[in-house]
């Protein structure tokens, strides 16, 4: 027995309903994100990747990564860090021969990401399809791969990844405890868990405005833009059902993570939780 938004359903029903929600919204997912959050979701995701501060050579597992927003930002970030690294290197080598200079340029081209890699894992075929198309369209190919998998039962070996991210996805997982355990398992010792998710607003005035906006505006946007009121009704209900910051922090600690902390964005509308596997 579990919940689907404000309804009570069995676990199996919940999984199926959630699958159908994302199957239905996949093609309009990005457009809806922009409309609902007035583009602010982009800033939240930027903040997440900046907090991650990945260096070239980092292995990222982005779970529930569907349309690729975090993956693309990760690639952009390590690419620019890498460029700066190479520029610094060249600055120190002032007496190079022509041979050495041309060799260094060739090296640049083949390692523009410096061996960084991101694996995007999602349970929903449609979301992955949209993500892959987006990647092709935007020109992302190196260091990026896609896997259809379940966050509660990851098809990855132990101690493999430097960072595990899940952005606006863990709310839709049916057994959050299992997903957290799997996150712990696949991270290398020293690896970092980062979760970006809608959370709870404690400020009473903002809370009232936020509720008003969520329940009056968002489903209407969903109907007008994506032709799907119910999916967006589910979305706003699922946000209310998700545990608040401190409770979620405790769940992450239960999975074995250390130095668990969270950072509220926009007064708690969104929070980034972070933990380390030591």
């Amino acid at each position: 027995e579990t919940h689907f938004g404000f309804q009570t359903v069995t676990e199996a029903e919940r999984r199926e309903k959630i699958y159908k929600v994302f199957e239905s919204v996949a093609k309009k997912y990005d457009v809806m994100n922009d409309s609902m959050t007035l583009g602010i979701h982009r800033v939240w995701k930027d903040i997440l990747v900046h907090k991650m501060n990945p260096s070239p050579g980092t292995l990222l597992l982005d779970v529930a990564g569907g349309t690729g927003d975090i993956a693309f930002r990760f690639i952009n970030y390590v690419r620019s860090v890498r460029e700066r690294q190479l520029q610094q290197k060249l600055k120190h080598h002032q007496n190079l021969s022509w041979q050495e200079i041309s060799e260094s340029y060739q090296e640049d081209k083949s390692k523009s990401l410096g061996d960084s890699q991101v694996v995007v894992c999602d349970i929903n075929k449609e979301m992955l399809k949209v993500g892959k198309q987006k990647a092709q369209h935007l020109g992302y190919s190196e260091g990026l791969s896609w896997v259809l998998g379940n966050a509660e039962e990851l098809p990855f070996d132990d101690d493999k990844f430097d960072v595990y991210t899940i952005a606006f996805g863990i709310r839709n997982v049916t057994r959050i405890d299992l997903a957290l355990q799997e996150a712990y398992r696949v991270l290398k010792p020293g690896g970092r868990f980062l979760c970006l998710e809608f959370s709870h607003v404690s400020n009473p005035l903002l809370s009232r405005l936020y509720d008003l906006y969520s329940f009056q505006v968002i489903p209407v946007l969903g109907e007008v833009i994506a032709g799907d009121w119910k999916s967006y009704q589910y979305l706003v209900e699922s946000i209310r059902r998700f545990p608040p910051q401190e409770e979620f922090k405790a769940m992450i600690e239960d999975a074995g993570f250390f130095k668990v902390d969270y950072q509220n964005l926009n007064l708690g509308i969104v929070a980034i939780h972070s933990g380390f596997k030591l």
Partner: protein
Amino acid sequence: MLRGSGRGVTAVLRRWASGGGQGQGQGQGQGSGSGSGSGSGSSSARPQPLEPSLLRFLVCPLSKRPLRYEEATNELINEELGIAYPIIDGIPNMIPEAARMTRKNPPAEGSKQP
């Protein structure tokens, strides 16, 4: 997404994976002869191969044991449990319910085991 027989089969597989193999029969449903595998809307053209770097990380989600890439059928095979995960449009489908049972003939395939 969830196949009727697949669910029952998956439950059996989970028990094997956690409790150690009992060498029981491979059960109902798909035989190995059906070359189409899961055949869920796969492209009519040549199937897209898997990103090679992925093989470093991928394991069977049930048993967490290594997989073998079978180029002929474009699948990832778990020899121990006798299941094959399809690769569709270059994306490996690692959901246990979608996996296909492989019926193995001991003399022929047994020799292929690494």
